[in-house]
C-alpha cells in the first residue's frame, strides 16, 4: 500500500489560485491580445489567421476571442512580429451584460454542481476539465463539484461544437436541470464552432442550440481559466 501512503502523506501541492496568481510555466498556453498600434507585419497576421480571429480595425489588430483555435501562427516564437500574448487565467466573457450578471451567487458560492456534456469535443477540453480534480488544482476546495446527473446540476458545462447527433441529448440534459441554471461553453468549438462549425453536421457553437451565459474561449482553455469561469458563475471570482 505504499502508493496509498505516498499519496496521502505527500503534502499539499495545490495551487494558491485564486488567492495568489499561478506562475508555473506550462499551466497556460496564453492568449493573443489586441494590438493597438499594429505594424505592417502584425497587420499581415490577419491573413495568416485560419479562422479570422484576427481582424484589422483602423490601425489596430483586434482579436475575436471566440474564434481563436490556438494555431499559434501569431504567437511569440512563431510569427516574425508576433502579437502580445497574455498569460493570466481570466479568459471568460459573458454573452449578455457583464460577467457579474451571470453569477448565481448566494448559497451557490459554497456549493455548485456541474454537469459536463461532451457535444463533439476532441478530448483536449475534456482532459483539461478532468484536471480540475487534479490535486494541483482541486476545485473541490472551492465548492465546485462535478455531478453525473443533470437533475442535480446548477451549471451545464458544454464542450464541442454541438454535432447534429448530440443536439437532442444536449437539449434533454438542459431540460432536466432545475432552475436556476447556467450554461457555460468551454473551448473554441463550443464558443464559435472552432475549426469544425458551423458545418453540415455541426452547429456553430453552443449558442446556436441553448442560451449560453458564459464563454471560455481557447483551444483548449487551461484548467485555471475554467476554474475562473466556474468561480464567476458561483459569484466568488477573484477581482
Amino acid at each position: 500500500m505504499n502508493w496509498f501512503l505516498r499519496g496521502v502523506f505527500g503534502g499539499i501541492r495545490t495551487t494558491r489560485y485564486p488567492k495568489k496568481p499561478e506562475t508555473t510555466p506550462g499551466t497556460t498556453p496564453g492568449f493573443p491580445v489586441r494590438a493597438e498600434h499594429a505594424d505592417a507585419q502584425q497587420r499581415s497576421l490577419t491573413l495568416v489567421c485560419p479562422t479570422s480571429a484576427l481582424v484589422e480595425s483602423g490601425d489596430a489588430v483586434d482579436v475575436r476571442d471566440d474564434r481563436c483555435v490556438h494555431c499559434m501562427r501569431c504567437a511569440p516564437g512563431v510569427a516574425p512580429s508576433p502579437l502580445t500574448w497574455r498569460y493570466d487565467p481570466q479568459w471568460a466573457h459573458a454573452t449578455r451584460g457583464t460577467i457579474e450578471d451571470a453569477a448565481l451567487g448566494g448559497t451557490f458560492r459554497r456549493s455548485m454542481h456541474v454537469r459536463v456534456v461532451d457535444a463533439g469535443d476532441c478530448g483536449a477540453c475534456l482532459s483539461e476539465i478532468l484536471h480540475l480534480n487534479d490535486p494541483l488544482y482541486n476545485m473541490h476546495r472551492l465548492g465546485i463539484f462535478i455531478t453525473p446527473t443533470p437533475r442535480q446540476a446548477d451549471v451545464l458545462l458544454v464542450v464541442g461544437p454541438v454535432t447534429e447527433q448530440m443536439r437532442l441529448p444536449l437539449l434533454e440534459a438542459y431540460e432536466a436541470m432545475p432552475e436556476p441554471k447556467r450554461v457555460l461553453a468551454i473551448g473554441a468549438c463550443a464558443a464559435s464552432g472552432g475549426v469544425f462549425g458551423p458545418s453540415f453536421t455541426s452547429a456553430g457553437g453552443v449558442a446556436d442550440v441553448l442560451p449560453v451565459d458564459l464563454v471560455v474561449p481557447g483551444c483548449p482553455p487551461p484548467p485555471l481559466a475554467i476554474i475562473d469561469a466556474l468561480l464567476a458563475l458561483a459569484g466568488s471570482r477573484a477581482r
Partner: protein
Amino acid sequence: MNTTRVEASSLVDACKHLGETGWRLATIAVADSEAPELRYIFQGPRGEGWEQLVVRPQPGSRTVPSLTPSNVSADWFEREIEDLFAIDFVGHPRLGDFVLHDNRWAEGVGPMRPGAPIREALVERAWQPRRVLREEGAFVMPVGPVYAGEAESALFLLETVGEDVVRAVPRLFYKYRGVEKLAQGRSAQDALLLVERANGTSAFAHAWTYCMAVESIVGINVPERARHLRMIFAEMERVRRHCAVIRAIVDSTALWVGASRLLELEERLLRACGAVAGHRYLFGLAAIGGLQRDVDDEALRSIAHEYAEVGKRIRVTVEELAHTSSFLDRVQRVGVLDTRHANEFGAVGPFARASGVASDVRQLQPYGGYADVELEVPTANEGDGYARLRVLTDELRVSTALIGRLASHVPSGDVRSDWSPHRGEALGWTEAPGGTSVQLLMLDDDARCVNLRFTPPSFRNWQNFRWVTEDFAFQDFPIILSTCGLSVAENDR
C-alpha cells in the same frame, strides 16, 4: 505503394489472397469525383510496405462486392463507406445506422458525395436498439450517450438476462464532425488544423501523419533537426497519453488516491509540454515541411529529464498497485481479447500488442527518423486488462528512455523546409499513441485538399470491442472500457 487495378468481380479473391499471406487491411478509401473509385490498402506483415487495390464499380452503379464475409476486418470500413458515400456492399450482413444515425438522417444520403443534399436529409424519428437475446427476461440496458462524470459521448447497449451482461454493443459517431468532408477544398495548411483537432490527445501524431503525406506529394525532405524533434514530441505525446490511460484504469477501479497521484503526474507532463512547445497538447507545433516553431536545446534536455523522473514515478506507482490485491483482482482476466480475434478484426497499437499481435509501424515501416533508432516493442499474450496495463507501462518506459537518448544530441539547423504546391496522392502513416494511424491524401495543383481518408487507430480497435465485452459482470464495464484506452473523438472524427 504498389497499385493494382482489379475488376469488381475478382476483388474478393484478390483480397482473400492477400489476407491469407498475412497482409492486413489498413483502410478503404474512396475517391468520388464523377464515378466512385475504391482503394483497398493493405499493410505487409513483415515490412513489405503497402499494397493498393483499386476497384471501380460498373459504370452507373454504386455497388461492389463485400469483403466482410471473407475478411471481417473490413466490416466497419464498409459500414462507414455505405453511410458516407451511399455505396452498397453486396453480401455485407448488416449495413445502415452507423455513422449517420437512423433517427437523425434519412438512409442513403451519402454526405461525402459531391453535391449531396445533406441538410435536407435531416429527420427526427424514434429509434429502438436491436436486441439479439431472446431469452425470457432479457433486456437491453442503455448506457449513454451522456453518462458518468466527464465521459466522452457514446452509447453502449448492454444485453443482459439479469446479473451478467452477455454482450455489449457500442453505438458511436454521436460526435461525427465530418473531418474528411470539411477538409475537401481547403488549403493543405488549413486542413492540417482539422486533422490535428480531430483527437486532442493524439494531436501531434495525426498532424505528423498528415504532414508526411503532404511532404511526399510535394516532394520535400524535412530538415534533420525537425526529423529529430518530431520523434521527441511524438514520444512525449505517447508518454502523456499512456499516463492518462493508466490513470483512467486506476480511476475505474475506484482507487482515488492512486488515480489522483497519476493525475498529478500527468499534469506535470502537460506542463512540461506547455513549457517547451508553447501548447500543453502540442497543437500548432507540426507544420508541413517540419515544425512551426523551434525549441531551445537546453529546455528540451530539462524536459527530457522531467519526463524520465515522472515516468519513473508512474512505473513505481503501477508496480505498487500490482501488489495490491483489490486492484489486481479487478483488472486481471477482464475484457480478454485473444490473439486470433485481434488479428482477424485488425486490432492495432498497444491494445493489439497486449494480445500478442506485435505490430508497430515504427519498427515495421519506419518513418521519420525511426529507422535509425533502436526500438523495443513490448508485448503480452494474455490479452486481458492487466496485460494491457503492463504493455502501456512498458511502452512508457521505452518512450521516456528514447526521449532521453534523442534529447541528448539534437542536430542543429533549420526546423522547416519551404515547399511549393504540387498535384498528387500519397499515404502517410505513423504509430500514434493508440496504434497505427493511416491517411491517404490527394492534393490538386494549388495544394488544395481534394480527398482525405483519415483512418485513426481507435476506429480499427473499437471494432474489437465486442470481443472484449462478452459475458462480464455489470460492475466490470467501466474497467473494461478504461483498459482498452479507446478514444471516441478519434473514432468519430
